[in-house]
């Protein structure tokens, strides 16, 4: 479409930021030497078959993948987002890479490659996953399904959850052990042909998480997945499916990091959420994939389709995201509000620095009566980056008394970056009540001086002010994530003042 102008790619040779601190910003930039098991590069039906075979999948799953692959072949990459990147050669990517030691599934964590555990150790922060992964039970109320490149490595707390009837396992396992559940819901929220990247994911997804919360169960702990891209030239295609049955509740955390590499790596995930009557799903993401260096070299291309359906009445889906990483982000976690009185929420902080580009937002599709949605988006742009909020609020004619409140605020740091707001507001029922507000501002010199006069360094002052700007979103994060996320905001903006 002609208004989705291509962004000029920033010149790679000039304007190196004065502040050399930038070099050390990506603290997760290491690569471990675990033996990898690759499928050959490129994509064709044979690769799809190979992936399916490697995962030991049933025939129906293979057929599903092949169908998606055929759909994908007839699709074109979307170009309406405010993103510019060189063409992706989909035949120059490894679609399957498994750490070798995982070929035989470990019985316990002790059998996991020590190198792999060391990787988690290096990841340092988020939560106490480290201890959990190391098997120190009772240290955290977080259950983790770790996806290392493409294979789910270990799922903890399984037994405790199983007692309550909660299923939390790699989706590959769910396909084998709970085929009826998977068949019933897979692809119902995000259809195979929904978009180019979703179709690709359907064909080649390697692993991801599956969660089922039975009727009336309040999941006693936060469920967490740790995604990490490790191998060179591998795309990571996780697939997550979460079903919250009637009157249930679950809070799900997703953290992502990727090692520092010169090449761009592709990531195209699909997340589907289904909330039945009175159920609530809270989905939180802290995304700090490698953003590329200060000249825009390397970094993750992050094309993600996340969507939830509030199927039952009075159900609720809440997305919270803190996006600081990736070279390119294309992501719109959305809610389809089908059930009467259902609620959708989207809380987002997106930070872009250097040459990062983010085009992110949400879709709130109101179909049920008395549905309501809230969108709070805070975009922070620095360096030569571009940060776009793109959102749709659509009130269908049958959605009586729908409510939406949207607030999108942008903060610019310097005048080489861009902050954009592209809201689509469609009210097709007159009982709708929609409010939308957007502002663009900068950190004022007065604010900076005030903080510095009290003894804070310039960097700390910026971090403090930015965290204040993003507070409405940050406070939606579960405690375990909040501290890391706060630090992340500061780290992501280092060197961007002055």
């Amino acid at each position, binding site marked *: *479409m002609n208004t989705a102008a291509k962004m000029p790619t920033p010149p790679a040779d000039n304007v190196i930021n004065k502040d050399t601190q930038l070099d050390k910003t990506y603290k997760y930039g290491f690569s471990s030497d675990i033996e990898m098991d690759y499928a050959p590069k490129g994509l064709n039906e044979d690769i799809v078959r190979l992936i399916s075979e490697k995962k030991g999948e049933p025939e129906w799953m293979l057929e599903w993948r092949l169908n998606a692959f055929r759909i994908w072949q007839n699709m074109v990459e979307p170009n309406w987002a405010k993103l510019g990147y060189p063409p992706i050669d989909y035949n120059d990517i490894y679609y399957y890479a498994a750490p070798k030691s995982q070929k035989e599934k470990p019985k316990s964590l002790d059998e996991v490659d020590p190198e792999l555990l060391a990787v988690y150790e290096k990841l340092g922060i988020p939560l106490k996953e480290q201890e959990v992964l190391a098997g120190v039970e009772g240290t955290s109320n977080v259950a983790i399904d770790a996806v290392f490149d493409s294979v789910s490595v270990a799922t903890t707390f399984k037994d405790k959850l199983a007692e309550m009837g909660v299923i939390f396992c790699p989706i590959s396992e769910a396909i084998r052990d709970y085929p009826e559940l998977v068949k019933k819901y897979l692809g119902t929220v995000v259809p195979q042909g929904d978009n180019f990247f979703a179709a690709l994911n359907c064909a080649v997804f390697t692993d991801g998480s599956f969660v089922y919360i039975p009727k009336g169960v309040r999941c006693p702990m936060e469920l967490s997945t740790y995604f990490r891209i490790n191998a060179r030239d591998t795309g990571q295609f996780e697939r997550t499916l979460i079903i919250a049955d009637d009157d249930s509740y679950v809070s799900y955390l997703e953290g992502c990091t990727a090692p520092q590499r010169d090449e761009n790596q592709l990531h195209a995930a699909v997340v589907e959420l289904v909330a039945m009557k009175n159920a609530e799903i809270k989905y939180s993401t802290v995304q700090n994939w490698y953003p590329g260096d200060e000249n825009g070299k390397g970094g993750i291309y992050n094309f993600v389709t996340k969507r939830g359906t509030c199927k039952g009445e009075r159900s609720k889906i809440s997305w919270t995201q803190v996006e600081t990483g990736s070279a390119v982000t294309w992501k719109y976690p959305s809610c389809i509000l089908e059930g009467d009185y259902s609620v959708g929420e989207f809380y987002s902080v997106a930070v872009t620095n250097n040459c990062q580009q983010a085009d992110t937002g949400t879709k709130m599709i109101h179909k049920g009566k008395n549905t309501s949605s809230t969108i709070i988006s805070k975009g922070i742009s620095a360096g030569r980056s571009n940060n776009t909020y793109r959102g749709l609020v659509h009130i269908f004619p049958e959605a009586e008394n729908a409510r939406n409140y949207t607030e999108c605020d942008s903060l610019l740091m310097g*005048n080489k970056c*861009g902050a954009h707001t592209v809201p689509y*507001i469609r009210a097709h029922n*007159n009982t*709708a009540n929609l409010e939308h507000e957007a*502002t663009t501002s900068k950190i004022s010199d007065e604010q900076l001086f005030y903080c510095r006069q009290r003894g804070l360094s310039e960097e700390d002052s910026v971090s403090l002010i930015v965290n204040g700007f993003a507070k409405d979103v940050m406070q939606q994060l579960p405690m375990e994530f909040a501290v890391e996320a706060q630090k992340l905001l500061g780290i992501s903006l280092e060197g961007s003042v002055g």
Partner: protein
Amino acid sequence: MAVLPKHKAQLNAARKMATSHAEALASYEAPRGLQSLLPTADARAAFEKAGFPTPVNEAWTFTNLAPLAKTNFTLPHKGQVSGAVIGEAKLVRDAVTLVFINGQLSYDLSEMTSLPVGVTIAPLSQAASMLTDSQVAKLKGKTTDGLAAANTAFLTDGYVLRVDEGQNITTPVELVFLSTGGKQAINLKTFITVGKGSTLELSEVYHSTSEEAYWHNSVTYIDVAQNGQLHFTRKQDEGTEAFHTAEVHTTLQRDASFYGFVANLGSKIARTMFETNVAGHNASANLAGFSLTGKGQHHNTSTHTLHGVEHTNANQIFRNVVAEGGHSVFMGKYHVLAEAQHTDAAMLNQNLLLAPSAKADSKPELEIYADDVKCSHGATTGKLDETALFYLQARGIDKSTAMAMLTEGFIDDLLNALPNSQARERLHDAIHRWLGRSMSTSMKG
């Protein structure tokens, strides 16, 4: 650009319809005075290549022009209209008035005796010599936009207006464009120049004596020179089967002010696009307007305001009222370049839905590359406040009157932006009449 297969099909259909439109008008000849300037053949080729706009095009994503594209139009013909009709249509009674019937100037109906010194105005077909080099370039220019190409390829006429330097013109100028129906495609092109330090109040009225389908397609270029000021008001009150498409391209120099106002009442489909280039320090672009959209109608108001230098201002407020079966669209955009520090730009779109089947779409957009700016937008959509309605009813006012009063209140203060009291009264009356008509239908719903 990658094109999706279904989009390709739409584009092909849109091209096909452009071709058949062009074929139907094949006997077209450019006005004699413009034949050497107008790139008629190239523009026709460009039109057929681009086709009519489709929703694939982001700017038309909420507006489907298929009913226009599918209509078989003819070339404009001569028409007869009485002076009383003009009096009815006019916005400013005392203005210097030029009347165009089916796109052609009617000297009989025009009133130009009070044309003040310092203002020159003439139909475009007779004023080629008045055009500046840059205006000629615009006339000759290539375009990839289907409607602009069609405008050039099948140009009927238009006008050229120039205000010399240092003229504070107190007599308003008004243009009345009347159609007598009969499926005509009327293409108008206009060039307006407001000289240094000059001021002008200008209005355009689009009206019809017919309920047949016809198409007014206008492209307007406005230049406001340093410290100049232009009030430009458009009243679109075409027939209910009419199509109206308008682009207003404005360039503002240092300290210049532009006050654009649009009142959308008529037409089956009407779109007004204000494209404003705020090119000088301290220039300000102020846009306002309203739509009253009834059954089977579609009104689209779009803006694109470019801020390219430091210290410029912009303000926009558009209020749309939609009755049963109507559809209104607002698409606004501020585009602030990195050089444009200290831009102060606000945008507000408020939509009032009077009936369950009323639709409003809104896309208030910001694209900002400068950090030290104050840019904001707000949008609200909803129905009339129940409490206020009840309050009025409790005082003994019947429901439809109460609704009309509240709706009038919703729009009325916008009219204060208009400099001319006659125009304010005229629009106020038009709002009042429209409400009277549509409330009775809405009440049934």
